[in-house]
């Protein structure tokens, strides 16, 4: 089959690789009909995720048709149309049974490696480095889906791929970011980063009852999407010298009740701190560039919540912990517990509360994936979200 493989920083290729096969009794094989490039794939593309090996297949947002099932997969049949959550979860460990699916104890074959990095291992992820299990990803014609009796959700035929594909990651990720804000009536939520996750966080915050959402970015097309479709008040940080003050002004001096970091470890910024972060990251002294996180902590109102949806990978310094402590902030974060949101968010889509296809700006073939990575990274041609068709 053809698959998008990683060969080094900025070097992804479409290679011919062996077709996947059933390895464990709870596996299934899915023929992929749609697959997307995630913002977090760019962290790999840019070389910031450790433990990648040349030849690894990327991609964790994919859906398709079941073509083969292992002998212990009783709930799926060949021909079923499914979306596949990006986190692989066993369904039977303590964490899965408590809806903490992305913290699954059993799905990372390289759990020992993750233990050394992070103290404990979370779930294995598709196409996201050997630290997260080294599973082959879904930017391919076929994928092997472990614990297929737990993860994949069957999709009714009347819903097109574009409407349900993002159940695999970015819709639940944006939704969980908003849910983590514990939104109460009258709450104002600020969202840093108007990429796909930010866009879903904005809409989800309104779905969960936010009074007002303020969106922060610098790319006009992303701010436009946030304002027009998302109904957010937008701030272009490139034109706003003091974001914290701007947010105060927009919230009657109280500050946002919740701040969502939908940017993560490769945040851009204009301050001195963002340039020193960049230097540290390039020299690998620091994995992450935490400019947005610092700003969110500075801006958040008293007793508020900082909700982190963007990925962080390592140790960061100069965090304003005194500020966080003085304001009594709550921090919520982590890989999305996708399984928890699949059914409720599918209901939302079927009910017409949201049509996730709004975020798609580019449709390309799998063969064009290397080009797609490039335009997505460089935000050429107003690229916000790419869907690939194998």
């Amino acid at each position: 089959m053809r698959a998008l493989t990683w060969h080094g920083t900025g070097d992804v290729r479409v290679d011919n690789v062996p077709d996947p096969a059933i390895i464990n009794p709870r596996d299934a094989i899915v023929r992929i009909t749609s697959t997307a490039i995630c913002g977090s794939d760019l962290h790999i593309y840019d070389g910031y995720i450790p433990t990648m090996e040349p030849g690894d297949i990327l991609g964790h947002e994919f859906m398709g048709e079941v073509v083969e099932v292992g002998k212990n997969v009783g709930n799926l049949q060949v021909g079923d149309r499914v979306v596949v959550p990006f986190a692989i979860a066993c369904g039977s460990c303590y964490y899965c049974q408590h809806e903490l699916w992305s913290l699954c104890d059993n799905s990372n074959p390289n759990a020992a490696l993750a233990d050394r990095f992070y103290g404990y291992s979370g779930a294995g992820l598709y196409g996201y480095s050997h630290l997260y299990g080294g599973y082959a990803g879904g930017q391919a014609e076929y994928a092997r889906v472990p614990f297929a009796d737990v993860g994949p959700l069957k999709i009714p035929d009347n819903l097109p791929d574009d409407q349900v594909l993002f159940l695999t990651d970015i819709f639940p990720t944006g939704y969980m970011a908003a849910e983590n804000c514990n939104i109460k009536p009258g709450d104002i939520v600020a969202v840093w980063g108007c990429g796909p996750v930010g866009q879903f966080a904005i809409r989800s915050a309104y779905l969960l009852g936010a009074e007002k959402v303020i969106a922060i970015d610098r790319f006009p097309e992303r701010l436009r999407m946030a304002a027009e479709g998302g109904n957010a008040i937008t701030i272009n940080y490139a034109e706003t010298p003091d974001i914290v003050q701007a947010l105060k002004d927009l919230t009657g001096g109280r500050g946002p009740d919740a701040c969502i970091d939908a940017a993560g470890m490769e945040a851009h910024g204009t301050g001195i701190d963002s340039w020193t972060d960049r230097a540290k990251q390039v020299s690998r002294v620091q994995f992450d560039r935490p400019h947005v996180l610092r700003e969110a902590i500075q801006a958040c109102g008293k007793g508020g919540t900082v909700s982190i949806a963007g990925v962080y990978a390592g140790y960061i310094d100069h965090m304003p912990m005194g500020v966080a402590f003085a304001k009594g902030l709550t921090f919520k974060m982590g890989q999305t517990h996708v399984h928890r949101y699949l059914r409720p968010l599918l209901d939302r889509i079927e009910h017409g509360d949201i049509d996730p296809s709004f975020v798609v700006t580019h449709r390309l073939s799998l063969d064009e994936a290397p080009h797609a990575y490039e335009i997505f990274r460089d935000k050429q041609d107003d690229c916000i979200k790419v869907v690939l068709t194998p």
Partner: protein
Amino acid sequence: MSEMRHDGTSPERLARVGVSSDAVTDQHQRAVRSGRHRASTTIRWLPIISGIAVAGYGLSRRSKSGLLLASVAGGAVTYGIGRRRAHDAPDGEHSIRIEKVITINKPVEEVYRAWSKVTDLPRILSHLQSVTDLGQGKSHWVANAPLGKTVEWDAETMVDQENRVISWRSTGETAVQNVGAVRFQEAPNGRGTELRVRIEYNVPFGTVGSAVAKLFGEEPGQQVEDDLRRFKQMLETGEVATTEGQSRAGSPSSRMDAGMDKVRQFADAAASVVGNR
């Protein structure tokens, strides 16, 4: 999971894993002592020979990882020579104790039952080749050793209290005299079973040999940790998570290359931490 420790026997720690400490300590010390005296000349020469071979390979790679490998292997050569001069070192010098604990989301009875079927263990514990039940609490074990070798021993059960503890020791001639105990304890509020394993054994290649073995992914504490994780996965999910045999471009990088990459990345990660402090 807890860390591997390299120190000697202490009755308090044995007591903590629920074994009658006097008996185990005595037997362990006898076992380790007799094993050391039986260690063959070949075993003492092995670090020298394998160290030179590995150092040569490391240097031939002409890379950072190769140099790291060469320097560690060089240590093995030095160790081997030193070991030949000082093979009358004090008792217990080369005993290793490993203590690991894992929580399994299953009732104590089920976990105990699974562990009691020793002949089934090699299906779960990748580092075991076979276990043969010889009856009357005796069994024969074959395990994978570093550098593609195997080690064998006979074991006898010392304590077997249902749903509480199983302990054993090796008997007769073997390169790895060992004694161990597994304790089963109910975790709080229905969180399953805390499975605590403690194994002590003498090391055929010594501690530096163990460091070289670590580069090959056969570091002993890691073996036990990996095996416990597999045991937990098998009990909780009915299978062991793996990516072996999955699709990728090109052939999978050799175990050595992957291992060395990881070592390098650990070093990078460590540097990142230090740089931030």
